[in-house]
C-alpha cells in the first residue's frame, strides 16, 4: 500500500500540487535534501506527460500518483489511463511520449519529442516505464532513510 496516494483531475494546474505533495512526502521519507529537486522535477515531468495524454484522449479520467516509503527507497508511481480504444477509439493511447507526434500538426510544436522521458531518465537512477491494462505506468525511485510509514 502506498504511503500517500493522490488522484487528480487531468488539469495542468494540478501538476504543481502533485509536485508539492511528492516533495513533502519524499522529505518525510528521509530522501536527502540534495535529491529533493530531482524528485520534484521528475514527478512534475511524469505528471505533465500524463495530464497532456489525458487531455487528448480521456479528459474525464483522473491521473494517479502513488508515493511509497519502502525500506531504503522512496518510490513514485504515476499512472495514466490512455490506452488506444479504451477512452478514445483510434487514439494513439499511452501518449507515446509524443515521440510519434507530427511536429507540423502537434498542438505543441515547440516541444522536442521525448524530452520529458529523457529528463526523467536523467534524474532518477531507477526508472521503469511499463504498459498497464489501462494505460502507462512510470515508476521511479530514490534512496531514502525510510524514516516513516
Amino acid at each position, binding site marked *: 500500500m502506498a504511503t500517500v496516494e493522490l488522484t487528480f483531475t487531468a488539469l*495542468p*494546474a494540478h*501538476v*504543481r500540487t502533485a*509536485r508539492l505533495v511528492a516533495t513533502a512526502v519524499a522529505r518525510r521519507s528521509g530522501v536527502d535534501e540534495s535529491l529533493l*529537486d530531482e524528485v*520534484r*522535477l521528475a514527478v*512534475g*515531468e511524469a505528471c*505533465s506527460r500524463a*495530464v*497532456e495524454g489525458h487531455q487528448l484522449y480521456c479528459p474525464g479520467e483522473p491521473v494517479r500518483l502513488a508515493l511509497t516509503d519502502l525500506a531504503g527507497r522512496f518510490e513514485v508511481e504515476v499512472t495514466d489511463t490512455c490506452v488506444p480504444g479504451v477512452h478514445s477509439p483510434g487514439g494513439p493511447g499511452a501518449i507515446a511520449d509524443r515521440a510519434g507526434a507530427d511536429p507540423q500538426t502537434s498542438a*505543441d*510544436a*515547440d*516541444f*522536442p519529442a521525448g*524530452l*520529458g522521458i*529523457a*529528463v526523467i531518465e*536523467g*534524474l532518477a537512477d531507477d526508472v521503469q516505464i511499463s504498459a498497464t491494462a489501462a494505460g502507462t505506468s512510470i515508476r521511479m525511485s530514490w534512496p531514502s532513510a525510510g524514516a516513516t510509514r
Partner: protein
Amino acid sequence: MDLKLDHHSKDGIEIVDVEGEIDVYTAPRLRELLIELVNSRFYQLVVNMEKVEFLDSTGLGVLVGGLKRVRAHDGSLDLVCTQERILKIFRITGLTKVFGIHDTVDEAIAARRAEK
C-alpha cells in the same frame, strides 16, 4: 509561486524577466509573450531566468520554440541563469549547446554584441 513576466529594452536587445515557476500550467504564457515579441519585430532576446524557481521540459520546449522563431529572422535568444537546479535540466537535455547561457544580463548583451 505563479509566473511573473516582464520585458524591457536595453542596448537594443529585448530583456525578458521571468520569475516563478515555468511548467505545463504556466509555460503557455511565456510562449505567448515570446511570440508577441517576435511578431513585434524584436528578434534579439535575452531571457533572464535568475528568479525562476522551477523549470520543466514544457518550459524548455517554449524556449526552444522561441529560439526557433527568432532564428527564422536571423535573431538570437540567450539565457541568463546561474542557478544550479535550473542549469541541471539544460545539461541533462543537452540544451547547453543550443543556448548561450550567461551569468548576467550585461554579459549576455556583451556576448551578443561581440558576435555581431
